[in-house]
C-alpha cells in the first residue's frame, strides 16, 4: 500500500508542464486531484517514474460560456459543478442556467463523497476514463469535445473518439487535457440522470443519462440521446433505443419500450458487482427512470 519510487515535478506554467510531458513521455503521469491516481499508485497498479503535478498551473480551473457551450477547465473540482457558474462573454460570472445548468448538479452529487468532490477534478475524471464515471457518461451522451494540448500544438477530440477502452483514452502521453466543451442544451431539451450504486458515493454499477429534444409544435421527440455506463469498457450510446424514442411523445409506455430496447442493446460483462443479466436489468430500470426524470418540467 505504499507507492513504488517516483520523481515529482510541479511546474508552474502550462509550457513547463508540456515540456515535462514531452521529455518524459510515457514514463510520466499527470497528477490532478490525485483521487484515482494516488490509490492506484498505492496499490502499485500505476508505477509512473515521474509525477507531473499540475496543481500550480494557473488557467486550468475556469468555467466559461462561449458559443452555446460551457468550457470546463481540467482542474475544476467536482464540487464546483454542484453549483455551476460560468464566465459570460461580457466577463461577468453567472450561475449556469438552462438544461445543462440543472443537469450538472444532479449528476455531480453522485461523484464520490464530499472530500473526493473537494479534491478530484473534472479533467482528471475524463482523463482517467472509468467506464462508470458520471462525467465520462455525461461527456459521451452530450458529445462533449476534449481540448488536448501538447508542446507546440492543440487538438480537439470528440467524445466518441476519446474513450477507447477501460482507463484508456485517445490522449497521447505527451498531451495534457486542458478543458472540455459541453453543449449548453437549449430549452427544448429535457435531460435526466439515474444511477444505481451499492452505497452512497460508490461508483455506479449502472448509470444512465438521457437527453431528448422536443418539437415545440407537436411535443414529440425530435432527437434522443441515451448514454449508459457500467456495461462496457467505455460509456456507450444506445442508438437503437434512441431511435425508438424519435417521433414519440414522452410517456411511461414510450419510456418503457425504449428501456426494453436499451436492455437488449447492451452487452455487459459480469463482474463482482453485477452479472451480465443483472446489469441488463439495471439498464432497463435506469434508462426508464432517467427518461421519466427528464420528462418533467424543463430544466
Amino acid at each position, binding site marked *: *500500500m*505504499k*507507492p*513504488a*519510487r517516483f520523481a515529482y515535478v510541479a511546474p508552474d506554467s502550462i509550457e513547463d508542464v508540456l515540456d515535462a510531458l514531452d521529455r518524459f513521455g510515457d514514463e510520466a503521469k499527470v497528477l490532478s486531484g490525485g483521487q484515482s491516481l494516488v490509490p492506484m499508485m498505492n*496499490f*502499485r497498479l500505476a508505477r509512473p517514474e515521474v509525477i507531473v503535478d499540475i496543481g500550480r498551473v494557473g488557467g486550468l480551473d475556469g468555467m466559461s460560456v462561449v458559443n452555446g457551450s460551457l468550457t470546463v477547465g481540467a482542474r475544476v473540482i467536482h464540487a464546483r459543478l454542484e453549483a455551476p457558474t460560468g464566465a459570460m462573454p461580457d466577463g461577468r460570472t453567472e450561475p449556469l442556467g438552462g438544461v445543462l445548468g440543472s443537469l450538472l448538479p444532479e449528476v455531480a452529487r453522485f461523484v464520490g*463523497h464530499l472530500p473526493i468532490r473537494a479534491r478530484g477534478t473534472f479533467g482528471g475524471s475524463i482523463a482517467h476514463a472509468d467506464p462508470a464515471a458520471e462525467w465520462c457518461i455525461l461527456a459521451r451522451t452530450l458529445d462533449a469535445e476534449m481540448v488536448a494540448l501538447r508542446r507546440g500544438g492543440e487538438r480537439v477530440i470528440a467524445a466518441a473518439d476519446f474513450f477507447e477502452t477501460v482507463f484508456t483514452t485517445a490522449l497521447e502521453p505527451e498531451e495534457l487535457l486542458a478543458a472540455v466543451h459541453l453543449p449548453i442544451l437549449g430549452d427544448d431539451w429535457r435531460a435526466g440522470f439515474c444511477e*444505481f450504486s*451499492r*452505497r*452512497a*458515493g*460508490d*461508483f455506479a*454499477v449502472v448509470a444512465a443519462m438521457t437527453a431528448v429534444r422536443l418539437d415545440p409544435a407537436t411535443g414529440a421527440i425530435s432527437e434522443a440521446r441515451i448514454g449508459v455506463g457500467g456495461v462496457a469498457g467505455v460509456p456507450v450510446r444506445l442508438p437503437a433505443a434512441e431511435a425508438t424514442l424519435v417521433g414519440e411523445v414522452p410517456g*411511461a409506455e414510450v*419510456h*418503457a419500450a425504449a*428501456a426494453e430496447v436499451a*436492455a437488449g442493446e447492451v452487452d455487459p460483462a459480469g463482474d*463482482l*458487482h*453485477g*452479472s451480465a443479466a*443483472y446489469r441488463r*436489468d*439495471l439498464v*432497463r*430500470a435506469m434508462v*426508464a*427512470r432517467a427518461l*421519466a426524470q427528464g420528462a418533467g418540467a424543463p430544466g
Partner: protein
Amino acid sequence: MSWVGRSIRRVEDPTLLRGVGMFVGDIGGAAAVRFVRSPVASGLIRAVRGPAYTIEDLDADGVGNIEAVLHRPDYVRLAQPLLARERVRYVGEPVAVVVGDTAAEAEDLAEQVELDIEPLPAAVGIDGALAPGAPLVHPDESDSNVMVAGEMATPGLAEALDRAHAVVDLEIVSGRQAALPLEARGSHAVTERFGGRTTLHASIQAPHMVRTVICDLLGMPEADLRVVAPDVGGAFGQKLPLAREDAIVVWLSRRLGRPVAWIEDRSENLMASWHSREQRYRLRAGFDAEAHLESLQADVVANVGAWPCYPITWGVEPLMALAELPGPYTPEHYGVRSRGVASHTCPMSPYRGVSRPAITLALERLMDIAAPRLGLDPVEIRRRNLQSDFPHTSPTGLRHDEGTYREAMELAVRHVDLGAFRSRQHVARAAGGPQPGIGICTFSERTGYGTPAFAARAMGVTPGYENVELSMDPSGYVTVRIGASPHGQGLETALSQIVADEVGTDPGRVRVVASDTDRTPYGWGSFASRAMVLAGGATYLAAQQLATKLGSLAAEALEAAADDIVLADGRATVAGTSVGVDIAELARIAHHHTQRLPAGATPGLSVQAGYDPAGTFSNACHVAEVDVDPDTGGVSVRRFVVVEDAGRLINPMIVDGQIRGGVVQGIANALLEEIVYDEDGNILTTSLMDYLPPTVAEIPDIEILHLETLSDATVTGAKGVGEGGTIGAPAAVLNAVNDALAHLGVELNEMPATPERVRAAVRSATGTPAGPTN
C-alpha cells in the same frame, strides 16, 4: 446516589477524540516488516528466492509450531508452522518475510522475492470442499476436508418429526465476512540490548494468552516477554487468536537486535487476516397443532478455511452452532450434525456474534416461514414459542437464566406500531415502486461464561476466569488492574462506576490498568461479551473487600463498630451520625501510620479477587423496516428498533453504544459485506471498493429501549451485551426484505441479500423482468 446506572461520560474518550491515542502504528522507530504471501490458493513450494526469511530460518532457530488445543475424537489435530512449509493453502498465506528501513522499501524488497510454487487444484466453498474427490487441504493428516464433526440427538426426534402437525424445511446461507476493524492488525517489538527482554506492542484482545503462546513457540520464559495492547482500533474477534505475524515480529526483533514493526495494510487485512461466518444451515422443524416448535433437526456446515485459530480452534463456529441452535425456543426434541470443513481459503476466527447471526437467521426465517402455514402472523408464532419459564435448560444442557423474550417482543411491536405499518404497506403495494417491509427477530445472547463453559469443550488451554487486583494508594485513589483487555468498549469507565459505589468514592478517583502483562494479573482478555460480567464481577468482589478493609480502619479510627460504617462521598461515617473521617485519611493511615491499624491487619490497601461464573443469557428483539426496490433489488433500511435486556445497566450510554455498533455490523452482514473467492480460490474482495462496509448513509437512526432483568447468575446482576446487535440485525433485515416482497412470492434466505440476489429472487418468483419502472 449510586454511580452504577448512570450514563457518565467515558474516561477513554478525551484521548481518542483529541487524536492523541497511541496505536501500534504510532510507536515508530522500527524497521518495517513485510510478509510475502502466497498468490495461489493451493500449491507446492519449490523454492523461495530473494532477500527473505522463510520457514527454514525459523526451523534453524528452533521455533516451534502452533499446536492443536482441542481434544475430541472428531477433531483433526494439526501443528501449524509460522510460515508456510512445503505447501501453501490459501491466497495470502505468509510464506516469507522481509525487513526494510521503511514500509515502502519493505514493499520493494517483497517484490524482489520470487516464490516458485507449483499450483494445485483448490477446494473452495462448502460444496467444493465436501465434494467427493475434492482437493484435500491437509492430505497428510486427513483423508477428508471435514476437520471437526459434532453430532447429537435427543431420543425420539424422528418420531416427533413424523407425527408433527406441520413440518417446515429450510436452508439458509451466510456469506463469508470479515470483522474489518478500523485499525488493521499490527505489532511492534523491541528487545533490550542488555538482559534481552522483549516488549511486544500489538493490536490484540488477549495479551496474556499471546505472551504464553509466543513464549512457547520461541522457547523463552514468559518473564522475558512483556506484551502490551496499546489503543486498539477495533477488534471484534479478529484480534483474539494469535497472529502468526506477531510471533514472527518478536522472533525478528530478537534475532536482528533491532526494533521491528509490522503494520498490516487493508488489502492484507481483507485477504489474510481472519474471516468468519461462511455457513449453511439445513433445518427441518416440526410444529404441533398449536404451532409449538416441538422438534428441530439441523445439518450445519461451516467453512473453516485452511488452518485452525489458536486457542479458539476451528471448532468455534460449528460447535457453537451445535450447542446454541435452539436459541430462545424450546424444542423438546433436537438433533444436529455440525461440521467444520477446511478449504483453500483464509482461516476463520470468531467475529462478534460468532455463529449466532446465522443461527438466529435460521430460526427467525423459520418462524416467519412457518407462521403463514400455521395461519399465524410473525408475532403470534413467536408469542407461542418463546421461552417464559426460567431457568430454562436447553436440549444441549445450557441453563438460561431469567429473561424477557416475550416482553421484549411485545414492547418492540407496540413501539413500531405494526398496525400503522401494515396500512402504509398496503398503500405502497397498490402504488408500485419501492416496497416497504418489516422484520422481527427475537434471540438470546449467551454471555459472560467462564471456565466451566470452556472446559466442556475439552480444550488444552481452557480460558475462563478473570482476576482483578485493586489497591487504594495513599492519596485515596483506587487502581484497578484487570486481566481483561478493553479496546474501545468503555470498560474502564464502567468499572470505575462499580468501584466508586462500593468504596464510596467517585469514578474520577479510580484508574483502570489493563492490557499490559507487566502490570496486570493473568487473564483472558476481552471477547465473547465477557468483560463486564467477568472483570466487572471480579472488580465488584475486590471492591467489596476493599470496602471491608476501609470499614475496619474507620471503625478503629472512629471507635465504632465496623458494621456501622457507611462509605459514601469520599467519607467513612458512623451510620446515623455526622461522625466520620475522609477515606483519603484512611488511605494515609493504611500506608503511613500502620501502627494505628487494627491488630493483625496487613499494611497497605491491596486486595485481589477472581470471578468465574457459568454464564448468563441476555435477550433482545430487533425490528427492521426496509424499502425494497424490486427493479434493482436495492434495499434501504428505514428504521431499526432494539429492545434489549442486558440485565443491570452499569452505564446505559455505553450499552447503547455497544448495541448501535453491533447493529451496524449486522446490517452490513445482512446487505453489504461479503468476502468473495473465485472458483480457483483467488480472493476478489481485497479493497474497500469491493468489500463494502456501510457508510452513515446506509444506516438509519437506531432506536433503543431497555428492559432490565437483574441476573441471578452474576454478582453484579449485569449480563453481557457486546454481540447482540450483530446477532439480531441480519435476521431482522432479511425478514423485512422477505416481508416487503411477500406479495410477489419471494423467499430469500441468503445473506448478504445483495441487490443482485434480491433482484434474482424477484425475477425467479415473478418469472418476468422488471415491472413498471417509474
